[in-house]
């Protein structure tokens, strides 16, 4: 059943999870804006999205007692390090303005994804009611 629902809701679910994760990563950057030697991080949304949409790597099993490796579950997106425009003396690579801009962008994208997901849910409810 959940598989049917997952298919009906589609891509926006994965996008929403990735956006939520990016919100967390950007919040960490801004929280550590004054921490010496902290390196700002981010995820490559495009690559992470491709990874989330791609077919899962599942091993072929020919026997009932063959196990799937733990890595066959979807991997969390890779965290990359940001390249600073102007490195600071204390080794911190957080640029608060840039982070704020990215946070705002991410928020708007999150809300856009929510809207898409919301309209899909409304459509599903409409289909279920037969209206």
């Amino acid at each position, binding site marked *: 059943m959940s598989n049917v629902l997952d298919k009906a809701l589609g891509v926006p679910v994965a996008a*929403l*999870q990735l956006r*939520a*994760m990016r*919100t*967390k990563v*950007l*919040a*960490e950057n*801004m*929280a*550590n*804006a*004054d*921490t*010496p*030697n*902290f390196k700002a991080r981010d995820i490559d949304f495009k690559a992470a999205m491709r990874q989330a949409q791609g077919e899962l790597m599942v091993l072929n099993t020919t026997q009932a007692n063959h196990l799937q490796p733990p890595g066959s579950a979807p991997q*969390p997106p890779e*965290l990359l390090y940001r390249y600073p425009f102007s490195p600071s003396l204390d080794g911190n690579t957080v640029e*608060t303005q840039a982070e*704020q801009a990215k*946070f705002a962008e991410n*928020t708007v994208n*999150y*809300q856009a994804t*929510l809207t898409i*997901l*919301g309209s899909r*849910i*409304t459509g599903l*409810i409409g289909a279920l009611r037969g209206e």
Partner: protein
Amino acid sequence: MSLFKVFDVAGSAMSAQTVRLNLTASNLANAETVASSAEEAYKARHPVFAAALKAVQNANDAPVPVQVQGVVESQAPAHVMYNPAHPLADANGNVYRSNVNTVEEMVNMISASRSYQNNVEVMNTSKELLLQTLRLGS
């Protein structure tokens, strides 16, 4: 859900900035205090921030909050002032004023205040996003 961790992260940053603001207030309040020896003179205190990275080694999506690792006292020399009339003056007629750099403290105060505001905004935005997610489909 990653959004819930934002509250931990932004909250830790807010408490760290509060510690910094507290120390700045203490430094500014004691900027003009004098003592009878260089050792007794008030020394400016500053927090040491560090990213709490220990938890990250265990889990990939663990949050990275800020922690205040400790408070260090400034090693700058105390200001020596010759004032024999002062009740705290030593045998040579000197009093020792604290080594607080007022300009530096004001800058610290503004920086701490801006960082705090920034984290409040992050928290507010994340709260809004969470509430919107909860209202999904209604």
